């Protein structure tokens, strides 16, 4: 076997005649924070549900820790903690009792409850009924529940959904600390690329049920090629002049664009333009943000 913690092959889920998840090969290595990205409705949650054994794949296989989910579901789940979409909790119970209800099923030691409460900083609210908690606190309780069984793999589906900025930062820091401090591998899904940028080491992008990109975050960044934008007095005349000199430039009404050039070439262009008495107003670098790449990859589905 190889060293993938999660490996799916041709994972497919069909509802009626529509493919919600189509031939997804998810590969998550040990110790990674794997960011699972995609617009709303792309199939993230369905994929995660299948990985957790909550939904049955129409086709394809899932191996976690090298074990087949179909055969060894329960022994796999023993080492997996999960938080799927909105937090599940029992509102009439206190945070402590909520954890107790799950702890009994996991057969974890009682002391583990206090440990996870302190990890998510809910120790002081442990004796309050959960229905009075803020969304952020409920989300943290959900993460605490996921951590109860000392998992080796944590699966978090949209853990920062609906949180305020400080809540998001808190959850993010919590997630980032996990692999370092506890050696946990994390699969975290989100529709926000900006969020993934700040914590993921690997990313998988899913759109309309299909995996369209899966690699390290730095590879994704490399795609953000930059171009130089020049604003001059007479755009049309200058761009014709540059083309006649053999430079590959594009232009619109206001700007001239030079793509994939070296610093030396830019300097050369500018020197020539100055020598030809052109007024240069601005020379700027335009960098494609990850958001734009994401949009390009997902075919412009607006969901940022």
């Amino acid at each position: 076997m190889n060293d993938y913690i999660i490996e799916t092959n041709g994972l497919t889920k069909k509802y009626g005649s529509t493919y919600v998840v189509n031939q997804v090969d998810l590969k998550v290595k040990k110790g990674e924070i794997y960011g699972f990205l995609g617009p709303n409705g792309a199939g993230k949650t369905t994929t995660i549900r299948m990985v957790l054994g909550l939904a049955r794949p129409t086709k394809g296989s899932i191996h976690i820790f090298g074990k087949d989910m179909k055969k060894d579901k329960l022994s796999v789940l023993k080492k997996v903690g999960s938080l799927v979409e909105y937090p599940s909790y029992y509102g009439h119970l206190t945070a402590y009792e909520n954890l107790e209800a799950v702890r009994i099923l996991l057969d974890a030691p009682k002391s583990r409850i206090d440990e996870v409460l302190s990890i998510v900083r809910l120790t002081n609210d442990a004796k309050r009924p959960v229905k009075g908690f803020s969304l952020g606190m409920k989300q943290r309780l959900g993460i605490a529940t996921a951590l109860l069984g000392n998992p080796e793999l944590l699966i978090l589906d949209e853990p920062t959904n609906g949180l305020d900025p400080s809540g998001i930062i808190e959850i993010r820091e919590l997630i980032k600390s996990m692999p370092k401090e506890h050696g946990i591998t994390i699969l975290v899904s989100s529709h926000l690329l900006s969020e993934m940028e700040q914590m993921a080491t690997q990313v998988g992008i899913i759109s309309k049920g299909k995996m369209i990109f899966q690699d390290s975050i730095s590879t994704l960044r490399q795609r953000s090629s930059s171009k130089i934008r020049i604003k001059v007095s007479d755009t049309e005349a200058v761009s014709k002049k540059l083309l006649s000199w053999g430079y590959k430039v594009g232009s619109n009404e206001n700007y001239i664009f030079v793509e994939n050039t070296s610093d030396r070439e830019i300097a050369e262009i500018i020197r020539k333009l100055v020598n030809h008495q052109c007024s240069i107003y601005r020379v700027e670098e335009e960098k494609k943000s990850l958001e734009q790449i994401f949009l390009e990859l997902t075919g412009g589905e607006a969901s940022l």
Partner: protein
Amino acid sequence: MGKVIASEFVKIKRKMIVFLVFLGPFGVVSLELVNFWLRYDWLTNLYKDNLWRGLIGEVMMLSIPSLMLGLTIVTSMIANIEHQTNAWKQVLALPVSKAKIFTGKLLLSGMLLFVSCMLLFGGTIILGILLKFGTDIPFLYVIKMCFFPLFSAMPFVALQIWLSIVCKNQAIPLMVGIVGTAVSMFSITFPDWVPWKWPLLINEWGNPIYSVIAGLILAMVVYAGGLLDFIRRDVK
């Protein structure tokens, strides 16, 4: 399996369910107290041959519909604990088989209803003593009449827990249960094979045990069917 039950008991803490378990038998016994208190002379004259049997007969007229209604509400509430915040996805992603979770819910319902029957038994005995029906108490008969209806009604417990778990909208199981309760109230004229008649413990052979046996067998069948359906389903 013990773990699943223990976890279920943690979850029903501070829920109305526990209150209902007491309310059912308490309501039945106190209504009978009023019944006998208001028409003491007439009823004691009517049942003068066997006062205890008379009392138990009156109790059962109320306890069986309450049992049918009670099991509907209890199963619905037990399932609803998970429905409220869709905790199914949390529970079923734990290393516990779906069969155990389903069975745990059914056993919890059975146990709570059993407690109700015990309270009904105690309450009936106390009521009889208060009414000065003597200390020559037919314990075995009282036990039979308090617990056998529950055993014969087990197919309905299995049916209701399955419906309550599978339907997110609790109106469906509640409607089925309430219609069932109404049907059971008029079931005395039904043929013996109709399950709604079984909790009355009345059959052609004149022995309640046949109703119990039929109930337990059908309960196993309904349970197996419900379980298979639950396992097959994807978790919402």
